[in-house]
């Protein structure tokens, strides 16, 4: 636990030691602004909520999160520091969790920095702030899901670009599997299968959380999802660390 904290702090500090953290946050804020006000027609809707803001998060994350996650392990492999880290008295689980949490906190900070939009909507009207808080929580959980996939993909290769592309592809599957287009393509299939596909999607779980419905099952979905992908990361690192 202590070791995990040390690794977490080092990773987080290294995000801020390079321009990475700042570039990520600025682009994230600009993009979420554009999505909300332009594509989401925030003003034209005339409703005091952040639905247009949260609706675009899955698609924003699809490209932003893999960019952070791609270097989690691929860089360690590329520079050889994985050999240093794995020969220190550090448990693999501490390293995997510490790195993941650092990246997750970075996305959390970026998310918190969108607070002006929350101020705006409170200034303009009387939104249900409980729903907005739930939306933020759901969005952060979803970011964790993306990151966990990215952690595993990053462990697979020493090339960050390949890790990026793989992560985008797999994340896309988990986002799109809940969309109308994909589900409509399965109209021939039994309802159980359609439900199963939909239930694996980020969209399904994120939508219900961001509407203010804090169902334990949705939260549990993300927690288990993150846990499984991190476990897969650890297994991949253990198997592949030599090459």
């Amino acid at each position, binding site marked *: 636990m202590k*070791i995990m904290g*040390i*690794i977490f702090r*080092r990773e987080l*500090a*290294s995000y801020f*030691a*390079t321009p990475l953290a700042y570039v990520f946050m600025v682009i994230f804020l600009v993009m979420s602004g554009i999505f909300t006000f332009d594509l989401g027609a925030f003003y034209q809707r005339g409703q005091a909520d952040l639905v247009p803001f949260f609706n675009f998060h899955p698609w924003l994350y699809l490209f932003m999160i893999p960019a952070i996650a791609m270097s989690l392990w691929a860089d360690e492999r590329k*520079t*050889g*520091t994985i*050999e*240093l880290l*794995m*020969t*220190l*008295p*550090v*448990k693999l689980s501490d390293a995997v969790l510490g790195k993941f949490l650092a990246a997750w906190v970075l996305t959390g900070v970026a998310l918190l920095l969108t607070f002006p939009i929350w101020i705006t909507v409170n200034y303009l009207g009387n939104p249900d702030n409980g729903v907005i808080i739930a939306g933020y929580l759901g969005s952060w959980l979803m970011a964790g899901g993306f990151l966990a996939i990215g952690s595993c993909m990053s462990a697979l290769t020493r090339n960050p670009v390949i890790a990026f592309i793989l992560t985008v592809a797999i994340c896309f599957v988990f986002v799109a599997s809940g969309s109308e287009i994909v589900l409509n393509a399965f109209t021939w299939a039994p309802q159980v299968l359609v439900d199963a596909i939909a239930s694996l999607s980020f969209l399904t779980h994120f939508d219900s959380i961001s509407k203010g419905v804090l169902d334990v099952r949705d939260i549990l979905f993300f927690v288990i999802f993150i846990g499984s992908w991190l476990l897969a990361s650890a297994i991949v690192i253990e198997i592949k*660390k*030599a090459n």
Partner: protein
Amino acid sequence: MIEISHLTKKFDNFTAVDNLSFSVAEGEVLGFLGPNGAGKSTTMKVITGFLAPTAGSVKVDGHDISIDPIAVKSLIGYLPEGAPSYADMTVLQFLDFIADIRGFSGQEKRRRIDKVVAEVELESVVHKTIDTLSKGFKRRVGLAQAIIHDPKVLILDEPTDGLDPNQKHHVRQLIRNLAKDKIVVISTHILEEVSAVCTRAIIIAAGRIVADGTPKALEARSRYHGAVSLRLASDFDLQAALAGAAEVGSIEQNAEDPRRFVIFPQPGNQVFSKVLDLSQAGQWPVAEFHLVEGLLEDYFRSVTQATAAKAGVSEAPVGQQAGVTA
């Protein structure tokens, strides 16, 4: 105490380390020699717990690396090949991180960092990011992180690679100072380094031990051991002059300098005094006259190439340079 028994490491179909067994005791500085790809680094990676052995076991101070890796890793200080470190950190941040992981805090951490910074002479760069350092400094940062916890076992993979002669000398001195009550294992290509710092040398080729002994003992196994190197001032029929001497085994003429010769003794004989007497009696035109002590390099080549040939790896023999003075 490091005990390695029947250690084998395979990558797919390639056997990097093949049934290796040896042990190293406190106070020993073991030089690990071998051609590239012989399995030196792989063996070190298994000892330090980075790679899991395919078969066999590694025990450090009684702890088996496969059963209790954290205990073993706490005892070991390791400089991996190429001295990797987190490039975006400053030297101080990096050493602070390593000290944290090694479980130091407060005053003790401060003291240890100051001590290693002084020991490997990093004072001038402590606030620079590792990224911007020269190869020599990076190597020293790697050394500093390996010794910060005063480990019982120090494993250094090519510690002087990329250093200039002064830095090499300094690192060797550091290793000698550290070695007192520790186990030090270093791998190197530089054979003079083995003679300079090691109390024992193991030569491996194709994943197997081909020689194990003190550097002096290995040198003595070289065919140059006890030979006489000789340079003549003018043309002279050396073959004829030595024809009667039973101790003399063979005479080798240097290809580049035809007046330079190496006179090898018959196995088990001394040739120095005999040749000296003959040269004085016969009034040879001698310009230089040396006793060759034996060359580790020569022995290294003879044992590693024999193994390479057996393994079917054909490698052009490096031209034997005769007349090398010892």
